[in-house]
């Protein structure tokens, strides 16, 4: 009775109350699901949201002993150091190009592989191909890069093949113009199978009766793919594409560092590898955080733009 009275004295609470009631109702109805979600929610709060205040150190001269709060503020000093470096433009350009080309080649490749696998009628053969294509995903990056360095060396595999065609042996990893090709080519080989899994999953969800209906209507395989498979795959493709756009500015340092050398830095030195080298000089927490924040901001902006565009053009979007 009392609570009812309270509510009635505040007219604008009515809407809130209904929302609260809805939530309560939902909680009651799906309590097991909510209970199962708790660990994940706690995980995200503890490990993703709470540490976020750590970005503060990109505006401070972080000193471990003083902690995040007591370290002195320095404003945009660390951003300035990064933007004023003679290598800022070069690393920015290399990062953007490397991930743009990776997306350009890698993204359609996974879809095409998934489509091709989908057309295979021999289940045994299909599964074998699948296993073979995604096996490289499980090989450690260090091993992969070791192989690449071996294959591309002056007396390596690639040169011994090319020498049959009269190509002068050279160390391909010392040629700046070849770095992107090697990096993206090996990345394609390593991840194409794995990346296609999600598309294959989406494909298996397509109602077979659609294909049957199309066949009755006289549609060949090509027409079936154009009018059934691709439209059904579109939401997945778009979501994956938008997510990939978000990561466009963050090229991981590990593979680049394992493959590059000063001779190829003009095309291979990306933001993260530059920061890594600079960080080696001292524990540059604040500087690394500032650059990380810069990368995230660009990624965030790209993600929002891509999502907006996609909403407008295709009516598909992340949120």
């Amino acid at each position, binding site marked *: 009775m009392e609570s009812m009275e309270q509510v009635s004295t505040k007219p604008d609470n009515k809407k809130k109350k209904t929302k609260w009631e809805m939530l*309560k109702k939902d*909680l*009651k109805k799906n*309590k097991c699901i*909510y*209970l199962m979600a*708790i660990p994940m929610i*706690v995980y995200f709060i503890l490990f993703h949201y709470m540490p976020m205040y750590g970005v503060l150190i990109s505006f401070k001269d972080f*000193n*471990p*002993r*003083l902690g995040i709060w007591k370290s002195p503020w320095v404003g945009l000093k660390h951003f300035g*150091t990064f933007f004023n*470096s*003679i*290598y800022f433009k070069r690393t920015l350009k290399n990062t953007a190009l490397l991930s743009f080309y990776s997306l350009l080649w890698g993204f359609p490749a996974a879809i095409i592989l998934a489509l091709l696998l989908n057309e295979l009628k021999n289940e045994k053969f299909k599964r074998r191909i699948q296993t073979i294509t995604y096996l490289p995903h499980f090989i450690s990056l260090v091993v992969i890069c070791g192989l690449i*360095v071996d294959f*591309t*060396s*002056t*007396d390596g595999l690639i040169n011994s093949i090319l020498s049959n065609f009269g190509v002068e042996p050279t*160390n391909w*990893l*010392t040629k700046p113009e070849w770095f992107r090709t090697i990096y993206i080519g090996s990345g394609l080989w390593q991840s194409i199978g794995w990346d296609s899994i999600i598309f294959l999953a989406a494909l298996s969800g397509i109602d077979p009766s659609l294909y049957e209906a199309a066949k009755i209507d006289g549609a060949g395989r090509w027409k079936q793919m154009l009018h059934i498979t691709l439209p059904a795959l579109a939401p997945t493709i778009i979501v994956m594409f938008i997510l990939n756009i978000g990561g466009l500015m963050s090229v991981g340092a590990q593979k680049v560092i394992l493959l590059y*050398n*000063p*001779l190829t*830095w*003009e095309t291979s*030195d990306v933001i993260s590898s*530059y920061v890594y*080298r*600079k960080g080696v*000089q*001292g*524990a*540059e927490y604040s500087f690394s955080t500032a650059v990380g924040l810069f990368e995230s901001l660009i990624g965030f902006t790209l993600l929002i733009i891509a999502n907006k565009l996609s909403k407008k053009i295709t009516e598909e979007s992340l949120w």
Partner: protein
Amino acid sequence: MKGKRVLSLILVVMLIMLSMVGCKKNETFTSDQDAEGGADGKVTIKYWVPFASNQYIQSLNESEMYKELEERTGVHVKFIHPAEGEEMEQFNLMLNSKELPDVIQTYAGQYKGGMDKAIEDGVYLRLNELIDQHAPNFKKLLEEDPELARQTMTDKGNIYAFPLVGIDPDEPAWWGPVFRGDWLEELDLEIPNTIDEWYNVLTQFKEKKNAKAPLVFSSRGIDPYGTIISAFNIGPGFYKKDNVVKYGPMEPEFKEYLATMNKWYNEDLIDKDFPTRDSNGRATLITSGDAGAYISEYAVVDQYQAAIAATDPNAKFIAAIQPSLKAGEKVNYRVVNERNGGYEAVITSSCKNPEAVVKWFDYAYSQEGFMLFNYGIEGKSYNMVDGEPQFTDLLTNNPDGLDFWTVCNKYKLEVGPYLRDYKAVPGFTDIDLDCMEQWTKAGTDHVIPPVNFTPEESETYSDIMGDVATFKDEMVLKFIVGEVPLSEFDNYVEQLKALEIEKVIDIYQEALNRYNNRKTN
């Protein structure tokens, strides 16, 4: 009812969270107790130190030597080892947490801002007074060896750590050039001493022995300890000439060095793949018999010698002196064993009983401590033969078939803060002795001693050197492989100046002046 359900849900969540928090609290509580003292009233030291474990000894807690030391000193040590390969990260994480062990060894010097800053921040303890009162053996060493005193002290006069100290102030060099002795003999060549002789030998290796890589070379194009580049009377990086600091890669002589390397590279005298060759790649190249010469350390030369015997039983490595331009000329840069031998152990402000810890450290610099740390326990790991300690079969001919280096840390200490005799190994091979003799012939006048930067200086240093190193590394390789002609050298020097390299030289100069002016008493 509804309310009750929600309430119980919230309670469950809180319970889970509380139990997590509870766990953590319990942990800290027990470790706090450890730091104060064991159950039997013994002093206990929590000692953070990186350690390379193997099948024979997993952690220094298993070390027989430290157990014996506990018997003798009544101090119990609890070793904490960071994960191998993540030492730096874990050191930084440890500093970020509020709890510190009592002692930090080896990575302590990485404290950002330097040792004076660490003492100012109240993280490490200043040891001057403690050493004065409680460490007679270490104090004596400092008094007798002003260079050691200078290197164990900061510019502000703080003594901050117990380092490894070599008992022999003239420990031989451990890094230098090595040639295929059997090839030299076969081709009737002398061991080369000058750059021209090197050129001749390498050319013959290439032409007559068909060596794929006559010279295996550092992937950055400059040997880090100055072999070859020192022939041109400069250092590989910052160096000093009559107490004036200079930067090797911008001196005019560096152009001659690059011209020589470029010539060697073009004539296939240097490993064609040197920019992409890592240490494993270099080892494979050397041990497969494709290489004629390389630059390394003597312990590694032993390994290579053993490995190459499998493919070519006649192969024999032989040490050469660091080359000079003219015959008989002395070069002035090589690897140096500083009096402060590193592996420095600091005492942190978390330590409850620093006097006892200092006394415990001091034992390692006493005569008995010297025998214990270098040779272990008499009758067990060594015996006195004709007045000289000699390792027992337990170490030199282990019943489990393990080699000395695998076994040794169980009975003695390989590296750490103690008075060390580099000869405390089962014995050097002839190659080792030859290497030491040849390599030590180079002088050390150009080497800058271990100076300190102030926090402001180290900030300027890392700000500037980040870009300078990138630019220099890139250009050096391009000059050597000929992608950029040497006529660009002057522009390269101008660009280095534009990147404010001279500011760093000034910083180094000031730091060196402060080092030279340190009052050692």
